């Protein structure tokens, strides 16, 4: 019985993230608009955009093949799998069983699906976006895996459930230098992975400044809806991981309905809070030019390396 419950909770977790993702985008847009002095749209506006896009027909370029058509479902599938198996609401059962290295790999698989689609269009912009995206993804990997090292050195395992449980059991571990350095490194890596400022501007119209947007210029209708939705889910996933790896309080450690619902509530609050902080930060920073991004990523790598060394020396 508990096996079935575990699977149901994993499915519910994935559903929760899918429903929450457009709201997270809405919150970032609202917070940013208010800080810029504008009257923002509603927080639920991304939901309306998705609903409209899902009803429109998709278009494929005549020269493209299966890679173009398969990328949106692939991106969404990778996001759903990570959403179902990483500990966001609970650490018990399937929903908390993901290995951190596997999560990093699955997210990279989604990115690769989109980059191949960008090349499959045969346009110059698609190739350009694809090339830049792969450069940034290649340089983010060391930071991500070294942060994994820093987190797992504390706990002795790369299993996300184990790491979150250890953090829950020892609340003061959050405020150690190793932990804070790893948080900073992962935060910068999140910005790079989800195509936010200062690495990429998600709302630009100038193709020469695009990285993520350039690969999806050719998509329309429900393909575009799936991609936008999956990208929003990736942002939610990464913010959720940041929240739960470093501040896991409130996560359900037993499978009982009350705890799980409470865990979901805490999770929503944490993620929306982080999204608001992200949006506020974006107001103060401009996008970096492409060949400055490696310097930023090298800086985050240095932070991750310091986190690892600190975890040896101090912890």
């Amino acid at each position, binding site marked *: 019985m508990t096996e079935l419950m575990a699977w149901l909770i994993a499915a519910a977790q994935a559903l929760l993230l899918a429903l929450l993702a457009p709201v997270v985008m809405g919150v970032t847009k609202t917070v940013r608009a208010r*800080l810029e*002095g*504008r*009257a923002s749209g509603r927080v639920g506006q991304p939901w*309306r955009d998705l609903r409209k*896009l899902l009803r429109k027909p998709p278009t494929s370029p005549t020269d493209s093949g299966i890679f173009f058509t398969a990328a949106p479902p692939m991106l969404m599938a990778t996001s759903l799998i990570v959403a179902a198996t990483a500990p966001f609401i609970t650490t018990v059962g399937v929903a908390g069983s993901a290995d951190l290295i596997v999560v990093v790999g699955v997210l990279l698989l989604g990115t690769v699906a989109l980059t191949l689609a960008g090349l499959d269009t045969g346009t110059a912009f698609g190739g350009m976006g694809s090339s830049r995206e792969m450069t940034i993804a290649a340089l983010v990997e060391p930071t991500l895996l070294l942060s994994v090292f820093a987190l797992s050195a504390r706990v002795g395992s790369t299993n996300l459930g184990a790491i979150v449980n250890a953090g829950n059991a020892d609340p003061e571990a959050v405020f150690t230098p190793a932990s804070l350095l790893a948080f900073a490194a992962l935060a910068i890596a999140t910005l790079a992975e989800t195509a936010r400022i200062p690495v990429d501007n998600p709302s630009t119209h100038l193709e020469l400044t*695009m990285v993520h947007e350039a690969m999806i*210029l050719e998509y329309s209708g429900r393909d*575009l809806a799936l991609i936008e939705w999956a990208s929003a889910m990736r942002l939610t996933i990464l913010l959720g991981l940041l929240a739960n790896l470093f501040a896991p309080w409130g996560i359900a450690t037993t499978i009982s309905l009350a705890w799980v619902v409470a865990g979901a509530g805490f999770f929503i609050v944490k993620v929306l809070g982080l999204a608001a902080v992200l949006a506020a930060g974006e107001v*103060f920073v401009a996008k970096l030019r492409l060949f400055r991004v490696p310097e930023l990523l090298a800086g985050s790598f240095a932070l991750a390396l310091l986190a690892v060394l600190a975890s040896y020396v101090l912890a």
Partner: protein
Amino acid sequence: MARVGLFGKILKTGRVAEPAVPADETVPKAAGLGGSVQVRHVDAGSCNGCEIEIGQAFSPVYDAERHGVRLVASPRHADVLTVTGPVTVNMAGPLRKTFDAMPEPRLVVAVGDCARNCGVFAGGHGVHGSVAEVVPVDVHIPGCPPEPAQIVATLRGLSGR
């Protein structure tokens, strides 16, 4: 300490956006869009006067985004095509192709007097014809140039919010 300066400026400036412009009732609410309108703009040979007004319509003061209207980078992402200018000979083909590249349901909004009847450029040797001669037009916004409030009103009418 530019950051502190910027934060202080945000607090001091507060909200810049003016109260919402009422929707234009004569514009039919675009069926199937449900409050989400994505706009692709094409300059078919205009003097850029209308462009400046459209730019202002999306600026913090008029803020068309609060009604669910957004500018996008590719016609494949768009529902509404705004066209300005008398359609020149060189832009007739690209304008038609832009319209064809948009997935349905799609609408065309002709902004300004030049888009309606070529305005002061009617009969010029480089002018092909009005927008309606190239793509089917759904809404006209008159004016030379039309005010940002008019533009926002029309777009608000299309979105229904």
